[in-house]
């Protein structure tokens, strides 16, 4: 495998019966990621259920509880590799708990795969999925118009669906969207080019996934490094060593760089950067490294090392787009623990500014109750200032979660406006 092969993470979203499981099964099967014993097990089940041939959807069949209910409960992760890239699929269910699961899958994705059944065109769920992909700022969107075999591979049908999608999505914040007519069941334009749709000039799905430009997906401009833990070996040769360990959120750091430590505001210089045992001169996001500084400054977990001329805002009251993820609704003025990078403080929801109806994209300023799957713009107030960037600029330093202090559960996820 080539030294430069990258990792691409994508989510799949679709409603029940639009062929999402079949598409994933097709990708796994045609990229030869299915083992013989898995194939044998699926063949046996297909036969038992009276299918002709193999039911590709069974490759993504999940837990016993789910099979009994015929639905997918949770995000499931699938893996496949081609000679060009490694892929991680976050397979999210299309039913009622869609928001919670889609948001989870979307948070780390490079690309969103949205499925549309060509017989039904754009439906409410399509709009929801596109909205969440835009809200979570997934850099690339691929709209697969599926089941083309059932509409006689009609170019006209395809064009109408594309036009409809373009129309409603013009309201959204999507940077890169492409459309592919496919039949997951028959394999048209999934791995191999379809012989049934000469009118389609673009790439099949797999080739698109293999060639998406993703190395610019991570912000390399604004240097942000949150300290996870401080390494103090106190062993011979390292008596005064204090290494600040963490994963670079964004930007590039070099030995000799002038840096500012937040929240204290003290300045220093980077004296060394380590990747494991190896000393390096330069490090960039998303590398896990440890750094030492020239001056003896008190730095602990949650502090941020940045560049003097490019700093996040330090703020105690700010607005986020909040997704409520728990079946216990938000309590008015209740205190939550807020996690931002490796930093943890207390926070309260000061105000619900508006909620968004994700089917119509309309804002509702009347309904103040945040229930499971709600998406709302809210004002948060924290006990101490956080070092924030807007989520649009920086997914890693513009995101937060809220943790309920009584149940210790993660109840909400937010994106700094």
């Amino acid at each position, binding site marked *: *495998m*080539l030294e*430069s*092969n*990258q*990792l691409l993470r994508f989510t799949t979203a679709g409603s029940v019966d639009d062929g999402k499981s079949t598409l994933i099964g097709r990708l796994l099967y045609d990229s030869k990621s299915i*083992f*013989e*014993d898995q194939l044998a097990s699926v063949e046996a089940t297909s036969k038992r259920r009276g299918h002709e041939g193999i039911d590709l959807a069974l490759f993504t*069949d*999940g*837990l*016993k509880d789910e099979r009994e209910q015929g639905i997918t409960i*949770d995000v*499931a992760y*699938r*893996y496949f*590799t081609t000679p060009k*890239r*490694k892929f991680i699929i976050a397979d999210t269910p299309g039913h009622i708990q869609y928001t*919670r699961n889609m*948001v989870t899958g979307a*948070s780390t994705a490079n690309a969103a795969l949205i499925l549309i059944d060509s017989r039904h065109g754009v439906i409410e769920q399509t709009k929801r999925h596109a909205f969440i992909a835009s809200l979570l700022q997934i850099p690339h969107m691929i709209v697969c118009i599926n089941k083309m075999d059932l509409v006689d591979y009609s170019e006209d049908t395809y064009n109408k669906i594309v036009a409809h999608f373009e129309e409603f999505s013009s309201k959204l914040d999507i940077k890169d969207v492409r459309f592919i007519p496919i039949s997951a069941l028959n394999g048209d334009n999934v791995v191999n080019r379809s012989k049934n749709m000469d009118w389609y000039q673009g790439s099949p799905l797999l080739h698109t996934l293999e060639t998406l430009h*993703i*190395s610019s997906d991570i912000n390399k401009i604004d240097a942000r490094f949150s300290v996870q833990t401080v*390494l*103090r*070996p*106190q*062993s011979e*040769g*390292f008596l005064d*060593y204090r*290494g600040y360990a*963490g*994963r670079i959120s964004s930007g*590039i750091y070099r030995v000799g760089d002038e840096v500012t430590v937040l929240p204290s505001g003290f300045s220093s210089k980077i004296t060394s950067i*380590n990747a*494991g*045992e190896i000393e390096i001169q*330069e490090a960039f996001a*998303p*590398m*896990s490294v*440890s750094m030492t500084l020239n001056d003896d400054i008190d730095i602990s*977990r949650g502090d941020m090392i940045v560049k003097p001329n490019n700093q996040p805002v330090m703020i105690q009251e700010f607005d986020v787009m909040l997704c409520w993820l728990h079946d216990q609704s938000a309590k008015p003025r209740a205190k939550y*623990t807020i*996690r*931002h*990078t*490796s930093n943890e403080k207390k926070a309260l929801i000061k105000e619900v500014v508006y909620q968004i109806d994700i089917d119509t994209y309309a804002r509702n300023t009347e309904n103040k109750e945040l229930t499971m799957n709600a998406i709302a713009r809210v004002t948060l107030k924290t006990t101490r200032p956080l070092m924030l960037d807007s989520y649009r600029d920086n997914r*890693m330093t513009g*995101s*937060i*979660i809220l*943790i309920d202090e009584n149940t*210790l*559960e*993660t109840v909400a*996820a937010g994106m700094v406006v």
Partner: protein
Amino acid sequence: MQKFYLNYLDELESEAIFILREVAAQFQNPVLLFSGGKDSIVLTHLAKKAFYPAKMPFALMHVDTGHNFPETINFRDQLVSAFGVNLIVASVQQSIDTGRVTEERGKNATRNALQTTTLLDAIEANKVDCAIGGGRRDEEKARAKERFFSHRDDFGQWNPKNQRPELWNLLNGKCFDGEHFRAFPISNWTEMDVWNYILRENIQIPSLYFAHEREVVWRNDSWIPISDYLKLEPDETIQKKKIRFRTLGDITITGGIESDADTLEKIVDEVATMRQTERGNRADDKRGDTAMEDRKKQGYF
């Protein structure tokens, strides 16, 4: 000019190191579950990198079924002394002797299921709040939905319907007394990734993974090694074969495959062309379609 993106192995490594450091920062008394298998060996290698030049801040915990490959135990002891870490051995034999569990009987009896009780007892006795494991999501469908930080209730049980959502890089490891977490830093690695990483980093692994001559019997569609614990059936004959193991578990249930792969390069080539899943040779996973899911709910690794 230098490139400013990571290749997939570097990105997986960076993610795993991030998670190991989160465990160290968020928990009071974490341990690293060490089986002597390749996945837990990769974990210790990653932990060494994550905390260099400091020592890794975890003890190793080995759940010892008593039915080990002697090679595994030697390897474990060498690694422990080379790394200078503490080793906690949780013994299944002791659980049997004290009546906590009862040995299975019959032809395919194993101590696999008994490990769960031993593990949970050791977690409680050592006040462990996080046990780091080498589980990977590609291994089995019940693992495909596992979190990096997987919450276990005060009975040590996994509830697939009530796992915390994990967004971005924000991991919530808060729990009440008596509860604990399992952490899986190499969740996103596949078997192929693990082997490619072992090759790239030139990580030492037990000789059992390399092709070698061994006395075996054909049982449950794989070559089961002869050992003091194996009861031969009348129709079984001992044969000498050149085999290697793809995974390492109990000596009584871990089947080998016929192979000539006696170097890391050859193993990587062989794994790349394998047509069976690696757990296909583990009798513990052949006990029905939901064997792993059922064991996980009970508190298995």
